[in-house]
């Protein structure tokens, strides 16, 4: 089976994000980048499927991003993926979700695929658009936010579950299909030391948009349908209010009034 994982590199969730003074973006100095956590579930599910499917199954990581993305690709290879395709083109900086999806879909098509795993969303911008768009462009079914995955013996169908309000939704789909992975689907393994050593020798193919036969004017920032006008930092948290010198009954009344009229939470 040709198993594909779509992977995005994002700032570590522990990184303190600072918005640039002119609001044109975020300060990238000192940011530590990691595999988007939901994509780690995708890598793990792909590796589990490979182990189960056996034979000549391979896991190929496909990722779009600048040079630094290779570090995260190597981590996925160290976890056990076999090969990677790195779409690296400066024109993709500022591309919208559709542009990125077009680039990824083409790279996946060129590589060949039987099944695709992705994170349900990237934890940086939380758009949750790329996986669905890739599936649409490849004209295959997609199920997002899956918490369980099973495949039939003949690998023609998959049964997956989604958590929904008050229950679980079970969906059966034909393959090939794309799945967006949710927390709880599995426990991503650590990249072992032997894995790190082996990852050095695994092939990472780098392609740009021209190499994929795509027009940077259409797929890249120039053709983006979405423009981010301004980045605004979160407002500083206000100091709390303490009600002092009041009787309990009076203080409670005042507290309810403040929660209702000022905080507007009740």
């Amino acid at each position, binding site marked *: 089976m040709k198993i594909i994982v779509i992977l995005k590199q994002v700032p570590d969730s522990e990184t303190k994000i600072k918005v640039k003074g002119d609001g044109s973006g975020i300060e990238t100095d000192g940011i530590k980048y990691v595999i988007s956590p939901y994509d780690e579930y995708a890598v793990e599910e792909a590796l589990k499927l490979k182990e189960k499917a056996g034979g000549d199954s391979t896991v190929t990581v496909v990722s779009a991003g600048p040079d630094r993305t290779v570090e995260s690709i190597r*981590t996925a290879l160290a976890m056990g993926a076999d090969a990677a395709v790195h779409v690296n083109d400066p024109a993709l900086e500022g591309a919208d979700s559709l542009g990125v999806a077009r680039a990824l879909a083409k790279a996946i098509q060129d590589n060949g695929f039987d099944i695709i795993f992705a994170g349900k969303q990237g934890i940086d911008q939380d758009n949750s658009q790329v996986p669905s768009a890739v599936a649409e462009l490849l004209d295959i079914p997609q199920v997002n936010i899956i918490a369980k995955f099973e495949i039939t013996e003949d690998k023609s169908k998959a049964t997956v579950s989604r958590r929904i309000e008050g229950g679980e939704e079970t969906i059966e789909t034909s393959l090939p299909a794309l799945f967006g992975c949710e927390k709880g689907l599995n426990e991503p393994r*650590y990249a072992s*030391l032997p894995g*790190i*050593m082996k990852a050095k020798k695994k092939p990472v193919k780098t392609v740009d948009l021209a190499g994929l036969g795509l027009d940077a004017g259409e797929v890249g920032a120039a053709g983006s349908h979405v423009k981010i006008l301004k980045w605004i930092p979160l407002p500083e948290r206000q100091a709390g209010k303490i009600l002092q010198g009041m009787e309990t009954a009076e203080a409670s009344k005042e507290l309810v009034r403040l929660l209702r009229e000022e905080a507007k939470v009740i």
Partner: protein
Amino acid sequence: MPTATEAGLSDTQRQVVELAREFARERIEPFAAEWDRTSHFPRDVIDEMGKLGFFGMTTPEEYDGMGLDTVTYLLALEEVAAADAAIAVSMGIHNAIPTTMLVKHGTTEQRERWLKPMARGELLAGFALSEAEAGSDAASLAAQATKEKQGWVLNGAKAWATNAGTADLMMIMARTDQTGARRGAKGISTFIVPTDSPGYTACKPEDKMGLRASNTAAIELSDCRLPADALLGDGGMGFVYAMEGLDAGRLGIGAQGVGIARRALEHCIRYTAERRQFEKPLHDFQAVQFKLADMATRIEAARALAHRAAVRKDAGENVGMHASMAKLFASETAMWVTTQAIQLFGGYGYMRDFPVEKLFRDAKVTEIYEGTSEIQRLVIARALR
């Protein structure tokens, strides 16, 4: 924040250190206080680390190890020590002493049987040199090995052996010279002793001040019969092998001391920013700032000293003196920094509910084991003559 980073690391080395940091943060640190309280040795975590490759870091690849350089190993060990020094000591001893001994002096069969599974993390190995009456004066040890037709018979007792009750095999130092013809350090040999050998008994674990999650116990050897190939290398060379192993071991203690000290500083940086007295955060007081600056500087210096010695070691130099310097400086740094940390935390620092108290207790032994600070100074002074 002075985390363990090193300029000039390759991507591979960086990934190894990142993995160690991630594993330590997720699988060790959250449980360290509980293991400390209950003196629980988490063999499952040790095994998991072994499977990931942390117990064969510097073992050559031909023996199923990672063949990594010593600096990378020390950086990984520092991460583990920062999470729990009690786990670091198992990793440090296994990687340094038994591994070095087998790599340098093992026969093909011994390496096949012991070194390879050790590097794969399937067997945990320890080392027993000290005895109740032979501490710093290690060459005066009395455990006796006697040659018989079938192999060897060991009798005697070892003291304070890390993992005596939890390792799969121990490298045990015993005399092979005879009563009436004692040869001092030259009468000592090294034996590979599986801990399930008849006549090997690990005593009740010691009730220690720190490193409480680590198993430390005396060993009783009572007609402990071993096959002929239990002898490592040449008879009478055991003390030399032990000293070689200790050179590597002392670099590990250096990294352990740095890890303990670094974690204490990290706690202090956070605490002095949050804690307010006299209407300002503690870190606005110059007396506090100076303390933090000194802590950070000593930690950097300790790490640099250990890494410098590691580079020399990998270049094939004799690092006896440098390993002693690294161990001496890092262990005294760990003790000093954790003492300052308790002072900065004040009353809270004295409480078990806060983490610096454990770091203080864990730090102390780094000035004692694998050669006391006094022995390190002796080694250094002798090398200066």
